[in-house]
C-alpha cells in the first residue's frame, strides 16, 4: 500500500471520529452552536432598527399666535418625535423632563414674527435629558429638524403676510408662493441599491458569518486541547501520523461539519426568513469555505496555546466578543480610528460579514481585497498552527 493511500486513510479517519464525538455530545452542540444561533436569530427577528420617537412637550408663550394643535408640530419632526402635549407652562414641562416622563421640551420663541420683522433672530429653546450618547445625538438631530421646520413655518407665514402687504401697496398680485420661499428645494428620493432589505435580511448574512466563525473556532479549540491533555498526543507521537496529517484531518473533519451546518442555516435564512441571495449559491459557498478555513485556523491555534478546556472556551468567547464589537456586525468598521481597524481586519468574520452581505444583498463581491485577505488569514493561521503543532508533537521533554 502506498504512502499516499496510508496518508489518506489517516487524514480521513478524523472525519468519522470527530463527527461521532460531536454526535455523542449533543449538549456541546446545543450550547456552543444552537445557543448563539438562537440568540442571534431572536435579535434578527426582534430588532426593528427603528428608534422609539422622543416624547416631547411643546411650550408656546402666551399670545404667540402659533398653532396649539399637537398634530401641527408632530408633522414637523415626522417620526422622530411624538408630541405629548402643547401647553404654555414652561416649568411644568421641564419638570416632566427631569422626571424622564418626556424626552424633549421645545419652547417656542416669544413673538417670533415681530422679531423677524424687526430683523432680529429669535431663540427656540430645546431641552433634553439623555446620558446615552446615541440618544443625545438623536435628540440633537430631532431638535435640528424641528427647528428647521419651525423656521420654515415662520418664513412661510412672514412671506404670506409680506405678499398681502405688497399686493395692497402695488395694487396687483405678487406672483410669489410662500411655500417656495420657505422651502425653495425638495428632495426626490431613490435608493439605487439592488435590493432594499428589511432589518432581518440585512443582518442575516452577518449573523450567518458570526455563527459560522464561532462554531468553527469553538469546536476546534476544544477538540485538540482535549487530546493534548488526555495523553492522546503521545499516541499520535508514537504513531506514523505526522503533524500535517493531524492538522489536515482536523481541518477536513470540522470543515465537513461546518459546511453541513452552513447549508442548513443558509437554507433556512433564504427560505424561511426571506433573506435574498442575489449572488447565487456558488458564490456564497466560496465565501463560506474561505471563512470556514480561516476560522478553523483560529480555533486550532487557540487549542494549541490553551492550557485547559476552560481556557480554550474563554479564548473562544474572547474572539466572539471581539467579533461582535469590531467586525462591523453592530458598528461599522469605518467608525473606528485607523489604529484600531487592523484588529477588525484581523478577524475572519469581518471579511465574512462584508463579503456575504455584498454577495447576498448586492449580487456580487466588490471588495475583492477582503476575499484575498480572508484567504491570506486562513493560510497564515494554517502555517502558524502547523509550526506550533510540530513543536508540540516533536517536542522532546
Amino acid at each position, binding site marked *: *500500500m502506498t*504512502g499516499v*493511500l*496510508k*496518508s489518506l*486513510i*489517516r487524514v*480521513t*479517519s478524523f472525519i*468519522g*471520529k470527530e463527527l*461521532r*464525538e460531536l454526535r*455523542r*455530545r449533543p449538549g456541546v452542540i446545543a450550547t456552543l452552536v444552537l445557543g448563539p444561533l438562537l440568540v442571534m436569530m431572536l435579535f434578527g427577528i426582534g430588532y426593528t432598527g427603528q428608534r422609539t420617537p422622543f416624547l416631547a412637550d411643546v411650550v408656546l408663550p402666551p399670545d404667540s399666535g402659533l398653532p396649539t394643535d399637537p398634530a401641527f408640530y408632530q408633522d414637523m419632526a415626522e417620526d422622530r418625535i411624538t408630541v405629548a402635549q402643547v401647553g404654555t407652562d414652561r416649568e411644568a414641562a421641564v419638570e416632566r423632563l427631569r422626571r424622564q416622563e418626556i424626552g424633549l421640551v421645545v419652547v417656542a420663541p416669544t413673538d417670533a414674527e415681530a422679531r423677524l420683522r424687526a430683523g432680529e433672530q429669535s431663540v427656540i429653546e430645546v431641552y433634553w435629558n439623555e446620558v446615552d450618547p446615541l440618544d443625545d445625538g438623536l435628540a440633537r438631530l430631532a431638535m435640528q429638524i424641528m427647528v428647521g421646520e419651525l423656521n420654515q413655518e415662520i418664513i412661510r407665514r412672514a412671506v404670506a403676510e409680506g405678499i398681502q402687504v405688497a399686493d395692497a401697496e402695488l395694487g396687483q398680485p405678487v406672483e410669489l408662493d410662500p411655500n417656495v420661499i420657505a422651502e425653495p428645494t425638495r428632495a426626490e428620493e431613490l435608493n439605487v441599491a439592488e435590493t432594499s432589505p428589511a432589518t432581518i435580511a440585512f443582518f442575516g448574512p452577518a449573523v450567518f458569518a458570526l455563527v459560522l466563525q464561532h462554531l468553527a473556532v469553538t469546536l476546534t479549540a476544544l477538540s485538540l486541547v482535549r487530546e493534548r491533555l*488526555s*495523553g*492522546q498526543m*503521545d*499516541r*499520535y*507521537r*508514537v*504513531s*506514523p*501520523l*505526522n503533524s500535517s496529517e493531524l492538522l489536515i484531518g482536523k481541518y477536513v473533519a470540522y470543515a465537513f461539519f461546518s459546511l453541513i451546518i452552513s447549508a442548513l442555516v443558509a437554507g433556512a435564512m433564504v427560505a424561511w426568513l426571506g433573506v435574498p441571495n442575489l449572488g447565487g449559491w456558488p458564490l456564497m459557498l466560496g465565501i463560506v469555505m474561505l471563512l470556514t478555513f480561516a476560522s478553523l485556523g483560529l480555533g486550532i491555534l487557540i487549542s494549541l496555546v490553551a492550557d485547559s478546556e476552560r481556557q480554550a472556551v474563554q479564548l473562544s468567547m474572547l474572539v466572539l466578543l471581539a467579533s461582535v464589537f469590531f467586525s462591523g456586525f453592530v458598528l461599522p468598521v469605518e467608525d473606528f480610528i485607523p489604529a484600531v481597524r487592523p484588529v477588525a481586519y484581523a478577524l475572519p468574520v469581518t471579511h465574512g460579514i462584508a463579503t456575504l452581505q455584498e454577495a447576498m444583498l448586492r449580487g456580487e463581491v466588490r471588495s475583492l481585497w477582503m476575499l484575498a485577505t480572508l484567504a491570506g488569514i486562513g493560510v497564515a493561521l494554517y502555517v502558524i498552527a502547523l509550526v506550533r503543532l510540530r513543536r508540540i508533537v516533536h517536542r*522532546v*521533554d
Partner: protein
Amino acid sequence: MQPLPPSLERPAASAPVPDAPPIIEMDGVSRHFGDLVAVHDVSLTVPQGTILGLIGPSGSGKTTIIRMLTGTLGPTAGRLSVLGQEPLKFTRQARERIAYMPQLFSLYPDLTAAENMNFVAALFGVPWWKRSRLIKRWLSVVDLWDARHRPARDLSGGMQRRLELACALVHNPRVLFIDEPTAGIDPLLRQSIWDELRSLRDDGATLLVTTQYVGEAVYCDRVALLAEGELIALQEPEELKRSAFGGELLQINTVNVVDDDSLRGVEGVREVRQAGPRQLIVVTDDAGTAAPRIMDALREAGVEVREISEYQASYDDMFTTLVQRRRTEREDGQPVHPEAVA
C-alpha cells in the same frame, strides 16, 4: 513441594530465538528531570521474539524508559536503538511496526470500544476493509467483543485497560511497548492477557512490558528489575530467583522443634533461615546432593524430619531481597552490576 497458585505457574515457554539480533538496545542510558535522576546508567538488549519484563515499584523509572524507547522523551545520556533506529528519529516505516500502550487511559470516552479501535487502526494506515476482522480478533482476545458498542466512558477501569491493549495491538505491530497492561485487572484476565502477549512473542514479536506485579515476572523471557531508576538485575526469571537467594532452596518441616544451628557447617549448605519452630529454609549449592547430608545432620541432632522439599520462593521475596542487597551495596559504596547477578 509448595505448589504455585495457578495464575503464577510458568506457562510452557517458547524459547527466545537464539542469537536473534537485538531489536531494542540501551547503552548507558540516563534521564534526569532537573535534580531528579529518573533513570541511571541503564544498559540492556532485547532480542527479537522476546518478552522483557520491566519490573519495579512505582517511580522506579519504568515509564521513563518506555517513553525514551518510543521517542517521546530524549535521554540525558547514553544511546538507544529500536529496530536499528534512534527513537527520536524513527522513520514512518519503523513507527508502523511499533505499538505503544500508555499507562493512563487516553482513548476517546465518547467513542465506543469498536470506534476507538477503528480510529487507532486508521492512524496506523490500516485500510478499512481489513479493520473489521482485526477489531473483532483483538476485542475478542481482551474479552470486550460483547462490549464493542459501549462508549469507552461506560467501561470499567479494567475494561478500559483491555481496550487500550486491544488498540495497541490492532495494527499487528512487531515491537510492543506496553506500560502496565494488567494494572487493575483481575487475576484470571491477567493470565489471559499474558497468554496473548506470549502468543505474540511466539509469532516473532518483541515485547517490552512494564508491571508492578513482581509475580508476573514468571510470564517473561527476561526480567529487568528496576529500583530508584537503577537496573538491579537482568536475567531469566528462574535464574534470577536462584541468583537472588544465592542457590537452590529447600524447605524442611520437622516433627520436633528445630534450631538453625543444627545445619551449620554441613557441606553444600550456604545459609539456613529459621522460618518457624519446626521449619527451616536452607540455601544450597545443589539441592539434590545437599538433601541427604541435611537429613543425616538433623538425624544426628535428634530432629525427626517430616518433609523435605524444594522451596518456591515468591518473586516478591526475590525482588525484596535484591533491592535490599542493592541498598546495602550502595551504602557500602559498591558499584551496580546487574549482569553480575547472573
